[in-house]
């Protein structure tokens, strides 16, 4: 029976919800042209089907991805979900359909369209996750460390482990301004919570002193006869500069 494709899915935007879209597509033999969440406004001439999130279905899909394809495929789907790219759901669906057909080797088929889309999309996400281990600065407020970031992808789950490991005995908060979420690490336990807004007090004298010391170090360490703005920009894209201490005046 041919797959029906003149249809769009709307889901609740959760990871389980996304897996339920995969489930629906399978059992109803549908190939939606569009999958979106309510906070995206989408114009479509096709009928929109609402997919409700069912934890048990989601779990079954996850199980079968791990068993019939691979854990690596599951990892990619998770990364894909953290992307802010429009149409990421379709990328994941197409990748999984191929995966269910071909099994584990799908992740090696780098020249296949569905796979290469998935690979480049997830590479962007994981690279951003890596960047936010590097280009993130904390300030000390009364002994607690606070950092603000503005990532494109939802990177908090990708960096939480790293910072818990780095600062086991500290208390810290990392606020993702673009997704309005924060990691809060307190009493040796991290949680990721929604956070509408973050108001910070003035930095204390000691904090200001360390910022000045860091700026001085940053400006002194460059060698004048090797100044190379383009290389710096390649290595540290400008959109990360906004919250970096060394670029604040």
């Amino acid at each position, binding site marked *: 029976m041919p797959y029906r494709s003149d249809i769009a899915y709307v889901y609740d935007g959760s990871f389980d919800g996304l897996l339920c879209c995969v489930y629906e597509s399978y059992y109803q033999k549908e190939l939606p042209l569009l999958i979106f969440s309510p906070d995206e406004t989408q114009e479509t001439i096709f009928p929109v089907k609402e997919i409700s999130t069912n934890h048990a279905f989601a779990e079954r899909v996850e199980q079968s991805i791990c068993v019939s394809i691979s854990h690596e495929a599951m990892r990619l789907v998770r990364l894909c979900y953290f992307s802010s790219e429009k149409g990421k759901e379709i990328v994941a669906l197409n990748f999984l359909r191929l995966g269910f057909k071909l099994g584990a080797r799908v992740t090696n088929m780098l*020249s296949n369209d569905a796979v290469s889309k998935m690979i480049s999309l997830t590479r962007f996400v994981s690279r951003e996750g890596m960047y936010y281990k590097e280009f993130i600065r904390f300030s000390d407020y009364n002994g607690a460390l606070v950092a603000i970031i503005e990532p494109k992808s939802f990177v908090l789950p990708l960096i939480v482990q790293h910072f818990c490991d780095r600062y086991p005995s500290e208390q810290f908060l990392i606020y993702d301004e673009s997704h309005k979420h924060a990691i809060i690490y307190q009493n040796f336990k991290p949680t990721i919570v929604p956070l509408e807004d973050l108001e910070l007090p003035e930095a204390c004298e000691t904090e200001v002193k360390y910022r000045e*010391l860091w700026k001085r170090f940053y400006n002194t360490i460059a060698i004048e006869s090797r*100044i190379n703005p383009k290389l*710096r920009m390649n290595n540290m894209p400008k959109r990360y500069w906004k919250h970096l201490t060394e670029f604040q005046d």
Partner: protein
Amino acid sequence: MSSMDVIDKLTILCDAAKYDVACTSSGVDRSGKPGSLGNAAACGICHSFSADGRCIALLKVLLSNVCAYDCSYCVNRKSNDIQRATFEPHELAELMIQFYRRNYIEGLFLSSAVIRNPDYTCEQMIEVLSLIRNTYKFRGYIHVKAIPGADHRLLTALGLLADRMSINLELPSHDSLKLLAPDKSRDDILKPMGMIKTGIHENRTDLVKYKNTPQFVPAGQSTQMIVGATPETDYQIINLSAALYKKYELKRVFYSAYIPVLEDSNLPAVNSKPQLLREHRLYQADWLLRFYKFDATELLDEQNQNFNLLIDPKCNWALNHYDFFPVEINTASYEVLLRVPGLGVTGVNKIIRARRTGSLDFPDLKKMNIVLKRAQYFITCRGKSMLGIRNDPEAVLRGLLSKQSWELAGSPMEQFSLFDNTLSIEKGELYKCLTGQI
């Protein structure tokens, strides 16, 4: 002197340390631990990039620039009239920890001028590191410079607190060292290098035997030499590096283009430009030795003692071994693919993975984000070259060079090996990150 502000000390002692190239935090994996501070990741983490485009991973400073020695290539030499400063051990430890907490840095890179004598300097450094490790319970990365001439036991104590230890070779030959660094002997440098190597070996056996043995420089040792201050050729330098990798099991050799800071009849004039492109070529060649299974003798020989500044050493080798090519993407072995100009380790791995699932053609390579700009002249897919690629070395060279360099070179192939080292350089080359895939 202790009345001087920390910020002034930092300025002086960072300025004095900045010509040191090694700034990686890589080579050791250590997870955090409740009650302590910090961890270390083997892949290394950069925290910022300075205006010269170089990675900032570590707080790179000298403990002191008050030097008892008089090496002529060095700003800190005794006879030079500059501002001097010395950190109190607790000042430096506190500064480093506070930087680390704010995620400015991954750890410390500590070096020092010779305060009074090598042993005293070494003791001061030990004090800084034990504060950081024992008082602040820091588990992150520390790279320390061994002081040539210091007592064996002190160097061992220092190594037990650090992740990496390095000793600068300074200059690529014995004669140059004698001329420019009269207070240091080659022996002072090579002896501790040997000692570190032995230390690492013994420590490894101890670690197997006793679970709680402290680790001795777990990330290994590295060294650095200045190029362009003295007359050694690239051939001499690369052979020296190859020997160092072998004999002392170094993790890295760093090259630093000499930046004239002082007037000295034995050194290039103060207004001469640092040989940045040459330094870049040495790094590329170094990568070929370490990751691409090239032998130093394949890259240069008695007749050709210096790298071609117009093209990278891998392209140079490929043009000189044109019979080796083209290689077939679908069947060539890993080692053979690695010899293709423009294909890096990542690219080769991707090709090997992808071709297991089906044979590859040029559009496939493009989809896999493999850059073909240089590789296209040296490969075939299913037996065919890429459309429009002419198969003779002159056409290839023309394709590889920018128009500007081609005209400068005067185009005929015979001149190829006679390129003048002073030719101006392709701008793009300079921008490429030193650790890029080649």
